[in-house]
């Protein structure tokens, strides 16, 4: 009893710490850091928080995120900080969650991703300067990292840190949306092909082979070069060129699921094809898809950065990590920081997604059970 009360008291002052002490450092660390970041933003950046005009939806989202970042971890921690599904049950997801929780690297990646997204959402409060505002060219450009400009300024005297923060919103959301499109499409098409078999299957799979045989980047730059580059086109093209990879995975799963008893039972009960596919086949084929999606987000972020680097992605002056790297390319020797930091941001983000993807794969693969 005293133990819990002390835990609650501690949680009231420093959310997440009791969980850290319990050894659940993934959830605990995330709660603590998210809360600290929220509080720091509120206190140190109070002028920005109170001074924003709150006209664009982004600013309202930032405010909502700020409130959530401060209250969420606190409430969660004070109320005992349990993830119910992980505690009880021995279903697939509970087992997976527990296996994932034991993988420290994967948890670190998860925490990092959570923080990247938080920072991206809170950017209106955090960014010290306007990302497209050009300072005094004579005195403010090519400034090295300093207290006023932690990551320096570029050739147009813009603050690299502010651009990096605003660029994060583009990179992180494009990755998510594009992978969402490709996973939805790929799962459905793959499941239909695998379940129906026969001619449908071979037609779809030949098409899939064809798209996969194509170097994806070349296809992307061909399409984007022919149409006007815009953020919608990029998201659409990135999403629409990735689904064949997902389809191939799903089809493989479905081919073996199709013969299993529970699917035969569903069929014997007279359920429609649609119902069998959507309710019985797809949920059971999701495990490898989730892994592929997580790794796919990292991949997509790299690809988007690459397209922006070639001038085919986000158009200037809007910041994106890829175009920032390109910006610094001709002035590497004079101002190495312009290219270096955005690239580092890409690497860290993608690394986090890959760590989580690897962790999920290990956690979801029953053959891996018991190892490590």
């Amino acid at each position, binding site marked *: 009893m005293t133990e819990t009360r002390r835990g609650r008291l501690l949680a009231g002052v420093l959310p997440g710490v009791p969980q850290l002490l319990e050894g659940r450092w993934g959830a605990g660390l995330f709660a603590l850091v998210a809360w600290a970041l929220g509080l720091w933003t509120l206190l140190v950046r109070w002028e920005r928080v109170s001074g924003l005009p709150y006209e664009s939806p982004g600013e309202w989202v930032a405010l909502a995120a700020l409130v959530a970042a401060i209250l969420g971890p606190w409430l969660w921690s004070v109320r005992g900080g349990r993830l119910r599904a992980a505690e009880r049950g021995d279903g697939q997801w509970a087992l997976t969650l527990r296996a994932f929780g034991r993988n420290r690297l994967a948890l670190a990646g998860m925490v990092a991703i959570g923080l990247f997204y938080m920072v991206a959402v809170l950017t209106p409060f955090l960014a010290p300067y306007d990302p497209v505002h050009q300072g005094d060219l004579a005195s403010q450009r090519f400034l090295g990292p300093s207290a006023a400009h932690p990551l320096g300024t570029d050739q147009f005297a813009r603050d690299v840190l502010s651009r990096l923060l605003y660029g994060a919103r583009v990179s992180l959301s494009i990755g998510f949306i594009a992978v969402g499109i490709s996973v939805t499409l790929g799962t459905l098409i793959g499941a239909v092909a695998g379940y129906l078999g026969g001619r449908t299957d071979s037609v779809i799979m030949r098409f899939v082979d064809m*798209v996969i045989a194509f170097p994806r980047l070349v296809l992307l730059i*061909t399409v984007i070069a*022919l149409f006007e580059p815009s953020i919608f086109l990029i998201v659409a093209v990135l999403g629409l060129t990735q689904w064949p990879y997902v389809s191939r995975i799903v089809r493989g799963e479905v081919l073996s699921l199709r013969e299993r008893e529970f699917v035969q039972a569903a069929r014997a009960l007279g359920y429609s094809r649609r119902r069998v596919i959507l309710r019985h086949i797809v949920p059971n084929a999701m495990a490898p898809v989730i892994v592929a999606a997580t790794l796919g987000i990292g991949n997509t972020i790299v690809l988007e950065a*690459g397209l922006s680097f070639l*001038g085919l992605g986000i158009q200037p002056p809007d910041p994106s990590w890829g175009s920032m790297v390109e910006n610094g390319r001709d002035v590497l020797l004079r101002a190495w920081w312009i290219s270096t930091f955005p690239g580092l941001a890409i690497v860290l983000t993608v690394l986090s997604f890959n760590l989580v993807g690897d962790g999920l794969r290990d956690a979801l693969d029953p053959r891996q059970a018991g190892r490590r």
Partner: protein
Amino acid sequence: MTRYLARRLLGAIPLVLGVATILFFIVNLAPGDPALVYARPGMDAATMEQIRANFGLDRPIHVRYGRWLASLARGDLGYSFARNRPVTELIAEILPNTLILAGVAFGIAFLVGIVLGVIQAVRQYSALDSILSVLALFFYSMPSFWLALMMILVFSLFARNVWEWPIWFPASGMTSIDYEFLGGWERLADRARHLFLPAMSLALVLSAGIARYMRASMLEVIRQDYIRTARAKGLPARSVVFKHALRNALIPVATLLGLYLPFLFSGTVFIETVFSWPGMGKLVVDAINQRDYPVVLGGSLIFATMVVVGNLLADILYAVIDPRVRYD
């Protein structure tokens, strides 16, 4: 075996044809009028119509598609607007540059990747294994164009201008300006120096993936009974690892040859752009900036064909080295 080869070869043809079809329709359904390239101020509508008719652009799309396929079959990829030369000629001249870069990078990538993967598997769960794993994942997560810029920054710019190292590497082109005046061996050294940074940038990212794969494959093999038998009968560890395990662990890695080709070619697009390497990737990127569609189309087609052919070779290689593969 012969039948298997024949079937795979026949299967590759519709694949290339399909890719060509997709490309044709993307280019032709895209907005914009290619005849506008020839538009001049003060030209009247009738002249524009004549230009369209000259290029066959007034025909319906299925007729254009048929004619395009026919010329493709003759090896005619059209005419570059920007360079005023047949696309086939242009590509024939430039393709070897890309093949050199890609070939050397692929070689280095597999060599480094396999060696690192074996070291990790043999020393599983050691500190070295963890360090190499994280390092491999770090490079695996890296955009190749950024790695290329960082290589230039360190090994070319800083090494030469700031730290004044005795060895630095050139950051662009295939040869130095004074290449023509060099002797035979010096020419080779000059080319190797220019090849070093682009090949390494390309290879490091690829080798990270190969090392991850090799480690898993080697671990799978090391657990098997015949390895335990080999150890039990007292064979030295070195011979068990290299003679018994490595050979079988390399089989699945052979499939990576085919799987990594699209990545390799995607990589060359960036690397060639960064290093001004006169290859296919740079050709296509330049063509896009110049709106030179025949070159874009031809270049993409060649890339896709190389991937299909590479996959075919990898499959055949796989069938040759793994007798367990059934050919039916």
